């Protein structure tokens, strides 16, 4: 072994070997397998399966569909009931705003499809 007081620049093989033996643990292959298993688990957790994404969408999707169905049913019922314009006017009032006329109501209740320019004018007026 080298002189303990010597400030040398080379590794001390004897000390190195003794320290290596003191710090060594057996079964490196088991350790590597453990690390790789942990890495695989981390990868699995990082990747969200498609079915989980779909499942996360399911409840809000069903709720939105039910709301849309009810709204469509009520709206269709009002329209098909024979032109109860009073209720339609009430329903459309917020959309028309305070300064609007009956343009939107007329568009919704008209039997024929409206002209595009009429729709545009009606929307501009409602603003």
């Amino acid at each position: 072994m080298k002189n303990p007081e010597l400030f040398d620049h080379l590794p001390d093989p004897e000390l190195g070997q003794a320290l290596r033996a003191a710090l060594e643990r057996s079964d490196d292959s088991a350790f590597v397998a453990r690390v790789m298993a942990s890495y695989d688990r981390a990868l699995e957790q990082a990747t969200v399966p498609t079915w989980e994404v779909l499942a996360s969408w399911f409840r809000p999707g069903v709720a939105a569909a039910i709301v849309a169905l009810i709204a469509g049913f009520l709206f269709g019922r009002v329209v098909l009931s024979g032109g109860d314009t009073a209720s339609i006017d009430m329903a459309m009032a917020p959309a028309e705003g305070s300064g609007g006329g009956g343009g939107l109501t007329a568009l919704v209740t008209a039997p024929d499809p409206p002209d595009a320019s009429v729709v545009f004018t009606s929307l501009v007026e409602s603003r």
Partner: protein
Amino acid sequence: MERYAAQARRVARAVLGDPDDADDAAQDGFLSALVKLAQYDSRRPFGPWLMRIVANAATDRRRRRNVRRAEPLDPSLVGGGPRPDAAAVQSELGDRLRAALAELPERRRTAVVLFDVEGYSHAEIAGILGIPEGTVRSEVFHGRRRLRALLEDWKEQEK
């Protein structure tokens, strides 16, 4: 990974003392290295890059452990004593060296292990530990002095 597994485990054990904690830290280091692999500059040697990550992981774990325990480890207990899963009896010299390492400051014992056990240069160790090269030389010198004295005493006893 197999090439560096033993080295990473030894370096982590030099920092932490406890072999199971050391393996956990080495594992943290490998996982971190796998995540950061894209950041590795292939023009530079891989070993120091990996050892820096492992040493940092071990240091982080030691800090967390110290916070949990809130009191210093008894150096004589470092190494864990006989374990149910350890079939082989630890050598007396090994026990003494581990105890002596535990008494050294963390940076000093890590520097000695990186230099004398793993064969890294002073410059590489400076990069691994993030300290000036001159400080590495000093740490290795002072760490060796204690360990060499212990080794000499043990050899005298064996005669």
